[in-house]
Structure formats: C-alpha cells, structure tokens
C-alpha cells in the first residue's frame, strides 16, 4: 500500500464518519430525503463559490455552498408550510430547481472552469492525493484531507457539546421547546452541519453518493440497537468499514471508488436487514412463526381446560372440535407433549399440572397484561416477549 492509497482511504473514512453523525439524526428525525435535497441543491453554491475562489477546497466555497443547503431547507419548509403540498413534494420541487441552475452555470462556463457534471455527481476520490496543501513550502498532505478533517472535528465537537439537546429535540420537540432548548436552533444547527458535511464530502464522493453515506450506515445501525450512543458508534463503524472495504473493491475491480463504497454500504444494509438479531427480516419471520405455534398451543390447552367431556378430548377428534387441519393439530399435540403439558391415556388427552398452571398464567396475562405473572415464561415462549 503506497501513501496515496493510504490517503484516499483516510479521506474516505473521515468523510464516512462526518456523514454518519448527522445522518443518524436525520434518520431518527425521518428526514433522510432532506439530505438528498441538500446534496443536489448545493451545486449552484459550489459553482458560484468556484467562480469566486477558483478553488474547490476553499473555505469560502464550502460556506457558500452550505448556505445554499440552508436555503434549500428553508424553501422546502416554506412551501410545505403553505399547506398546499406535502413535504416530499416540496423537496421534489426545490432541489431539482436549484440543481439545474448549477448544471446550467457549469455548462455556460465549461470552457473556463475545471468542473464537470460527472465529477459533481460522482466525485473523484482517486485524484484527491494530487492536490496538496503546502504550508511555507512544506507538503502537509492532500488539501481535501485537511478540509474533511476540519469538518469532522467541528462535527464531533458539536456532537459532544450538544448531544443531550440533539437527543431531546429529536425525540420530543414539544418537551425540548418547553425546557428552553429551541427546536428551531437545533434543527438549523443540524441542517448547517449536514450542509457543510455534504459540501466537504461532495468533492470526494459526489452529490448522489453522499446521501448513501449519510443514510445507509445510520439505517443499518438503527436495526441493530436500541441505544442512541451505540447507534452512533455502529453507524460510524459501518461508515469506516464501507469506506475502506469499498476502496479495495474498487482497486480489485478497477472501478469507481465512490461507486464501490456505496455498493458496500448497500450490502452492509442488506445483511443487517436480513440477519439483525431482533429487527431483521429472518428474526421477525421466525418470531411470527413461533408466536403462531404458541397461540395454537394456548388455544388447544384452553380447550382442554374448558372441556371435561371425553369426546372433546379424544386424540382423533381434536381437530374436528378445534376446527383445525389434521397436520396442525398433530404438531400442536406434539409440542404440548414435548413440554409435559398434556398427558395422553387411552387416546384421551388431559392437562398435566404444569399445563394447567401454564394455561392459567397465560390467560391471566392476556387479560390483565401484567408482566409479573409470566416473568418465568418469557425465556421459553415468544408469545410473551415484547
């Protein structure tokens, strides 16, 4: 691995972390699409900033572009507030308008400036190490590394300082307002950070993929934890992993770095979506299946508890009485027997003491919804888990 490769991975990782932090809050605030809007709408800001500064990494350009991001958010909210269209429509109206202004500005001046639409949409991480920052003639590393590094530093500082405020205003706007934490200040603060991060990441991964870096790690983390701090940590880890692994995928395939990083992000989400221990699709399906079986079991046990008549409890007639198909009746019978809840004598089924207690407790729980009754059953039965 040469130093250019190392620098590219470092830049990609820093960008990923800087995106994952505001991204986590955007996902929790159900504002994922606003990052898409910002990433496109800042284009005119970047172009105009470039006209003025002639430098893609200039702080002036970054601030100008971030300002365009804030204008986007304000415009979307203004249109939405009229009550004439919904938020998603407002987003769909605002960002293409701003983006197209940027596209026209580039096209009109394509001969004069070193900026093309492809680079804007997809970024070009591979060239990042060529643009060096020189201080007093000494090479201190690629310019974009310093840019994204500074943005990350600011983001982390703000996160640590205002974590509590971000959390409370994201969870409960009304409470935050009544406690004196202006939700508007926090909202625009988060939007500013998102805009600045987007501009910083723009150069590296482009307008389309920066959205993936903001949303995919946070969405994956959301499925894995119920703790905000862990969600942030996981989102950051997924971001770094995808950045580094994505780089090497691009290296092996000789493909676009940004494209490979995003593909890895998508795969990470897919894996989490399938295999997350509690919220993953497979876990959910398994749980539903178990619950279905257990509901059947309980129905069956209740039937036994309610009927003393021999004909109601004969093995061969069970399915008629509960109106089940034979195969389902058989599997429920097996399950009950395996758990020592029933006793079969001369083909007549009766509840064991354990079965009787289980049924009483379960019914009690279903009727009162009091947890205390079933504390000891929770480990064994999905039916009684949250």
């Amino acid at each position: 691995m040469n130093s250019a490769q190392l620098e590219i991975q470092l830049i990609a990782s820093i960008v990923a972390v800087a995106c994952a932090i505001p991204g986590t809050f955007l996902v929790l605030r159900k504002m994922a699409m606003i990052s898409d809007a910002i990433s496109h709408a800042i284009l005119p800001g970047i172009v105009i900033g470039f006209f003025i500064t002639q430098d893609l990494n200039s702080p002036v350009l970054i601030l100008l572009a971030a300002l365009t991001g804030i204008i986007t958010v304000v415009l979307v909210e203004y249109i939405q507030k009229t009550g004439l269209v919904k938020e998603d429509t407002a987003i769909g109206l605002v960002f293409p308008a701003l983006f197209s202004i940027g596209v026209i500005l580039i096209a009109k001046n394509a001969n004069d400036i070193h900026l093309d639409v492809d680079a804007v949409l997809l970024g070009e991480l591979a060239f990042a190490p060529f643009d060096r920052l020189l201080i007093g003639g000494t090479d201190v590393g690629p310019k974009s590394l310093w840019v994204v590094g500074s943005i990350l530093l600011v983001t982390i500082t703000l996160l640590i300082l205002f974590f509590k405020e971000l959390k409370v205003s994201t969870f409960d706007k009304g409470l935050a307002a009544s406690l004196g934490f202006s939700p508007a200040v926090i909202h625009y603060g988060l939007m500013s950070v998102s805009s600045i991060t987007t501009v910083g990441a723009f150069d590296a991964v482009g307008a389309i993929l920066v959205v993936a870096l903001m949303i995919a790690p946070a969405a994956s983390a959301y499925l894995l934890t119920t703790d905000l701090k862990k969600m942030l940590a996981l989102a950051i880890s997924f971001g770094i992993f995808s950045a580094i692994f994505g780089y090497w995928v691009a290296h092996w395939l000789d493909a676009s770095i940004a494209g490979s990083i995003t593909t890895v992000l998508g795969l990470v989400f897919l894996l989490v979506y399938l295999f997350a221990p509690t919220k993953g699709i497979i876990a959910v399906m398994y749980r539903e299946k178990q619950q279905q079986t257990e509901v059947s079991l309980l129905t069956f046990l209740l039937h036994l508890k309610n009927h003393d008549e021999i004909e109601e409890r004969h093995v061969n007639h069970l399915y008629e009485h509960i109106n089940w198909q034979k195969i389902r009746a058989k599997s429920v019978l097996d399950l009950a027997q395996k758990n020592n809840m029933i006793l079969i004598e001369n083909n007549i089924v009766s509840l064991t003491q354990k079965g009787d207690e289980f049924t009483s407790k379960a019914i009690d729980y279903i009727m009162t919804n009091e947890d205390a009754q079933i504390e000891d059953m929770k480990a064994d039965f999905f039916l009684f888990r949250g």
Partner: protein
Amino acid sequence: MKKESKENIKHSSLSDETPTGAGTIAVKVDDLTVAYNYKPVLWDIDLEIPEGVLMAIVGPNGAGKSTLIKSILGILKPIAGSVTIYGKSYEKQRKLVAYVPQKGSVDWDFPTTALDVVMMGTYGSLGWIKRPGQKEKKAALEALEKVGMLAFQGRQISQLSGGQQQRIFLARALVQNASIYFMDEPFQGVDATTEIAIINILKELRKAGKTVIVVHHDLQTVPEYFDWVTFLNVKKIATGPVKDIFNDDNLTKTYGINYKVSIQE
C-alpha cells in the same frame, strides 16, 4: 388556600381542601389569540388559574385545548395577548413548569430506554451543554418508582404498553420537580388501572400545593378527578370550581348540543 367544609364540595371526591381561587394566581392568560394559517383557533382568551388547583380543560375536538397549553408554554407563538407564570414571562419561569405532551406526539421507536426518557426531565434545570450525572439519575429513578415503573427502567420504550409509556411521561414531568404541571390528555389510550394510578399521583401533587392543568376528554370523570374546570371552545366559555360551574348550561354552551350531565356521586 382556605379550608372549606366538606358538605360544600358536592361532586368532588378530593379530600382535605378545595381551593377557592382567592389565593395566588399561578397562570394568567390575557387576551390570547392564536391562529394557524391566519385561522384563529383561540380567540381572545382571558384565564386565571389559581395556585393549587387540579384543573381540567374540556371542550370538543378542535376547541384549541392543546393549543392553549402549547401557547402558555411558548411552544406556539400567539398572534396577540400574553401569558404570565406567577407574574413573570414563561421564559423566566421555565423551571417552575413541567409539561407532559400527548403520547402520540413522539416516536416510541426512538432508540432509548425508559430511564433515559425520564432523565430528559432533568435537562431543563441543567441548561445547555451540561450533561446529566448521578444526581439526575437518582432523581429519575425515584420518579420511576413513584409511577411504579422502576422494574422497567432499562426497557426500550417501544417495548412498553400504552399505559406504561404514559407513566414514563408522567415520571419525566415529576422529575422536573415543578410547581405547575401541564398534561395533554394523559388518560388517552390507557387502561383503568393506569388511569387510577395517574389520577392518584395528580391528586398527590395537588395536595403538595402544586397546580395541575390537564386537557381532559371524559366528562363523566371531571367531578371525580378535578376541583377546577375550564370550558373551552375557541373562546373561553367558563372557568371556576367544578362544584359551581360544571353544569348542563356550560356543557351545552361548550359542546353546542343540549347536554345532560348524569353524574354519579
């Protein structure tokens, strides 16, 4: 607050004392008008809430009950009028006030625990930047115990039942240790057990001299739960002691239909 003989408290099951409204004014609303998109939802409201009452705000859907609370708390900006808490603006008296929003106003899938939600009640006294520590955690645990939810402190909030979520919200308000409590429909979607548990806590707060203001829907329980009531339907219809003003006349004025109260003693 003056003592009153029990015979005078006709419908109220509240023991000890019923406020007369003669004491200090906790919340004063003057000429308050609030509009959404230039359509007034609250018209020229004048309201004085005496210290130490347990007050219900009743009125039909769209009467502006939640809007009134939110305007008092500075969450919504009125187009006219003013609100004072013990004679000063809300911004200055923030720490005296606790607020329980409607349960449906937050996302219960938010990645956090019951204890953490209750801790949020301490954020106001901490102010910006400062983070909660052991003292705040202890206060939150005590509040959880008061609402009977200590065993659920580590539970992710989506794993709680509706009644349990409401208790968590109540605990979060208790931890603020305020003088005035505003609650937006705390009985919405909770079972009878939780409703009793909540009203008992509210009555305890009142006994401790706190002022409690509740947006309430169930007219049947007003005389049993509350000692003060405000009828609201865009305009203020009436406000005062339940025993004096909770009658068919005011109910009809508020709800617009000929209302018959059938209240069991």
